[in-house]
């Protein structure tokens, strides 16, 4: 007779083997390192869950595997000569995941719901260019006054207040996908549960256990269902990047949207083919509070900005192949030539000498050193970054006091202007300079530095009115160069997407938008 211990162990092996066999079949995909969605209502969910949401919902436009804009629910569109009216032609036989038909009026409902105040929707400000959107969100006008209409069953029309070159990109967002009015009105906040949630994208929701998993199954009514390879997608939300990494190494997960930065060396050595690093539409920067001392003085901002060697930060602190940043708009933005300031090309000794004399001119020196508080938030790599900045600035006689806070506290303090300096990250939803330059525009909600320059605002406004792409981008470039000469914020490095993809998963094309739609992925034997 067998002793009890091996018996117990073989039972374990058998059950574990059974478990893995059930999980890793040819037509399933297991994705990890995603945030737990705060909601599956496409207009309420926050931006952190976009990969899941894009698997479930497809807007009027969509993206190909490389992140290029392609038709989505609309097969074609016309833009009027003044850029103010968009006619969208919906695909024939467009259907919800329950098989019922989608019509133009469903998109009218979608955009009205998005800008209606008081119903917890998040992305209304995306569509401020649509006629009356801003006044409806401010409670001045009825949502019925929104510049959208259904001309017939398959023609959806949007009227704008001003030309919006990023409108087509923004319409790819799940928040602008068709919403089922009848189901939402029947079930209220519980309409997003499995069995009720009808979707318009390549997948539909089969199961959702918060903090455990979401299971998506192929939507047979999706307009391109024939091209969708993987039948079932499991998402495992994680709050611990190390755990997700271990699950990937154990073969329990196929695709990680991120991994801990300090594991890079090990991954490069051991999993070279599975590592994907790609520049993203995002920036890591230090925002100075321009409204109050010491950063109301441009010399102080300039001294701190030019004294930091970005290459050192990128190579020695971040170590995940991040591009160095001297501008606010990332170099990866399409067709845009970033206006890199001159100091970027000067030698470090010269820059440090200039920084010292700028501080001296501003009244700081050994007797009266510049002292300020720098706030930063998780993850751990930001701590290393903050400590590095502290050490670099000590070289020019500056005392940096570091304050570590959680996300919520940091965001609240920068949003209300109750801070001196803070490290911050910004991701743009569109491949264009405009949302990056919003960081510097007066009155913009993301202008945390409080920078104000009337000429800059004027250039931005005139750029927005340009219909020709190259003229518009040239104006943006002029505006950005003007603002950077005032050193309102300190760009540090541009963000990257860092993914781990199992070798048997094919069809993934890294792109700056970080699109990794399950519909394009395949599992090969």
């Amino acid at each position, binding site marked *: 007779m067998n002793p009890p211990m091996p018996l117990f162990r073989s039972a374990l092996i058998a059950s574990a083997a059974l478990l893995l066999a059930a999980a890793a079949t040819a037509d399933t995909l297991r994705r990890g390192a995603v945030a737990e969605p705060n909601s*599956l209502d496409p207009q309420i969910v926050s931006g952190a869950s976009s990969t899941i949401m894009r698997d479930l919902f497809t807007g009027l436009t969509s993206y190909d595997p490389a992140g290029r804009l392609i038709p989505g629910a609309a097969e074609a569109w016309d833009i009027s000569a003044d850029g103010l009216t968009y006619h969208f032609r919906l695909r024939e036989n467009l259907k919800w995941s329950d098989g019922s038909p989608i019509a133009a009026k469903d998109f009218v409902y979608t955009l009205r719901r998005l800008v209606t105040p*008081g119903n917890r929707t998040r992305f209304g400000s995306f569509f401020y260019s649509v006629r009356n959107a801003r006044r409806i969100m401010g409670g001045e006008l009825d949502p019925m006054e929104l510049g959208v209409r259904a001309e017939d069953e398959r023609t959806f029309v949007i009227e704008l207040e001003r030309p919006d070159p990023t409108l087509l990109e923004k319409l790819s967002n799940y928040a602008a996908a068709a919403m089922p009015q009848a189901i939402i009105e029947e079930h209220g906040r519980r309409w997003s549960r499995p069995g009720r949630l009808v979707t318009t994208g390549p997948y539909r929701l089969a199961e959702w256990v918060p903090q*455990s*998993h979401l299971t998506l199954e192929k939507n047979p009514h999706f307009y391109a269902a024939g091209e969708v390879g993987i039948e079932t997608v499991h998402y495992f939300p994680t*709050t611990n990047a190390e755990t997700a990494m271990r699950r990937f190494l154990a073969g329990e997960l196929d695709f990680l949207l991120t991994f801990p930065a300090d594991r890079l060396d090990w991954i490069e050595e051991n999993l070279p083919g599975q590592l994907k690093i790609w520049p993203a539409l995002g920036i890591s920067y230090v925002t100075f509070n321009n409204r109050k001392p010491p950063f109301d003085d441009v010399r102080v901002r300039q001294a701190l900005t030019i004294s930091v060697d970005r290459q050192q930060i990128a190579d020695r602190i971040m170590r995940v192949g991040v591009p160095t940043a001297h501008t606010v708009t990332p170099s990866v933005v399409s067709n845009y030539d970033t206006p890199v300031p001159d100091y970027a090309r000067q030698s470090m000794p010269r820059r440090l000498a200039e920084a010292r004399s700028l501080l001296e001119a501003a009244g700081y020196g050994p007797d009266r050193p510049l002292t300020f508080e720098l706030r930063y938030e998780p993850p751990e790599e930001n701590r290393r970054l903050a400590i590095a900045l502290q050490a670099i600035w000590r070289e020019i006689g500056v005392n940096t006091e570091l304050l570590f806070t959680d996300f919520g506290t940091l*965001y*609240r303090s920068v949003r209300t202007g109750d801070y001196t300096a803070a490290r911050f990250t910004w991701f743009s939803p569109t491949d264009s300079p405009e949302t990056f330059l919003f960081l510097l525009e007066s009155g913009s909600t993301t202008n945390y530095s409080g920078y104000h320059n009337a000429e800059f605002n004027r250039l931005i406004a005139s750029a927005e009115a340009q219909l020709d792409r190259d003229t518009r981008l040239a104006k943006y470039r002029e505006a950005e160069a003007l603002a950077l000469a005032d050193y309102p914020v300190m760009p540090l490095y541009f963000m990257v997407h860092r993914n781990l993809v199992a070798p048997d998963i094919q069809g993934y094309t890294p792109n700056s938008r970080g699109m990794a739609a399950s519909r394009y992925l395949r599992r090969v034997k």
Partner: protein
Amino acid sequence: MLAPMLAFTLRRLAVAIPTLLAIATASFFLMRAAPGGPFDTEADLDPEVLESLYRAYGLDQPLLEQYRIYLANVLKGDFGPSLVYEDFNVTELIAIGLPVSARLGVTAMLLALLFGGTCGIVAALRHNRLFDHATMTMAMTGIAIPSFVTAPILALFFGLYLKLLPVAGWNGGAAANMVLPVIALALPQLAIIARLMRGGMLEVLRANFVRTARAKGLPERQVVINHVLQSAAVPLVGYLGPALAGIMTGSLVIELIFDLPGIGRYFIQGALNRDYPLVMGIVIVYGALIILLNLLSDLAYAALDPRVRRTYR
């Protein structure tokens, strides 16, 4: 004997209500005193959007008014909607998370009692001999090494290296997924229980009534089972109540490291994201569990020790 015990129980339950009220009040105002608000982690919300979110959740009301509404709802058994998991009510989330944590916690506790109790008894009977020293050294190690060290090591060894068990995940509570988290949860408890049991045993083994039992000529086994164990378990019983409440309401570390959908994760996510209703709901449930399990452990005391029984009048 039953009547005073019943009266004692009722008295304790009556005190529980103001206690829970005090807990709810303190946590309500403490949560609000923390800087930041529930939607602050979404960095790019427009002021219009933020304002409309605050209005939708009643957060634009004066604080005392919010407190009044909250208490009124809690008395009706409604903890309100979660601000972080916006498609769910707090009650629904607790109903999802608590069973997971409770199942892990109770399993771990049973395991710890079985092994820790046995080790403690045997160590006491072999007092100052090799087994005693070995188990107590291991127990001290078990107490000293925190679970955020043992848990990843277990996952690395049994999951990645031996490939015997899944490294993380709940998988609907499959046995294979429970093994590692339960062991990681049980180890420190096992160590504490072994020490408590050994200590209790050693004290009782020297007591006069045990000497009497031995002098009567009872076999050692009978002395231990009939006379020693019951009294020796008293300190352990006092420990078990609060410990069980703690372990059932979720170990944040274990749930994070093994990706388990337990209530500890909700608690920390709720606290970080200022999900006021979720945090308060969990605090109240936790408070109620502690009160209940402390009461049970006091009743168990009385059952084990007649002297204690007399004080429960």
